[in-house]
């Protein structure tokens, strides 16, 4: 599986989304599910660039690969060399938090919630010195 390399910079978000969208379309994913997958990858990539790399004074890359597996899943794999971070460790807002009026709302955690809710399966692994975030959506039989 060959990966596409992007600089760990917020300017890479748009081309990264384009890649995911193009592959989702090619795999026959519906517009709305393709959008949610693209959003999920974008939110996690944004976190990696801002909190994994920039806050720690690091520069590096995002390596992205997209494939359709034998189990008929579209799988996006996002790897980086930033500090270890498992997005699942962030506690996103729950239903009660989301019912709070906007003027009193804590704005944190929305991105990670959208990422986790936007795919059928999300996995994180630390592989050697790398972070690997995996996003999977089921394709129709």
């Amino acid at each position, binding site marked *: 599986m060959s990966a596409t390399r992007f600089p760990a910079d917020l300017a890479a978000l*748009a081309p990264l989304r384009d890649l995911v969208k193009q592959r989702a379309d090619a795999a026959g994913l519906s517009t709305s599910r393709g959008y949610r997958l693209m959003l999920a990858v974008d939110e996690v990539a*944004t976190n990696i660039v801002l909190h994994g790399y920039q806050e720690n004074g690091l520069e590096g890359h995002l390596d992205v690969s997209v494939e359709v597996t034998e189990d008929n899943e579209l799988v996006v794999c996002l790897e980086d060399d930033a500090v270890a971070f498992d997005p699942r460790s962030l506690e996103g807002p729950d239903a009660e938090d989301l019912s709070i009026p*906007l003027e009193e709302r804590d704005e944190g955690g929305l991105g990670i919630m*959208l990422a986790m*809710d936007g795919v059928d399966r999300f996995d994180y692994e630390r592989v050697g010195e790398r972070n690997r975030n995996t996003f999977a959506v089921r394709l129709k039989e």
Partner: protein
Amino acid sequence: MAINVSECQAVKVIAVDGSIDGKTAPEVQGEILPAVAGIDRVILDLSQVDYMSSAGLRMLLTLYRQFQARKGRIALVGVSEEIQDVMSHTGFIGFFALADTLEEAVALLEGTS
């Protein structure tokens, strides 16, 4: 990403063209906030916005709080189905007046519809 400021029936209209993500949201916010300083009604035309991440939601939250503080109102026009889904999922949608056209947005802000 581009911002265009105009008026519709004496209500200021701010049209955004492009994607609102972690990179562009601070830029969009930096242009919108000075444009809405001191006014109590605004229409945000998002019909040319094809993508909005949580960074865009945080921008909307900042705008909402400013308008709320001065008893103002914000109407959003042309929000795509995908972005509406995200706003609904995050509990944002009920806090904004949503319209399909500028005229409808003006009517909503004036409380006539």
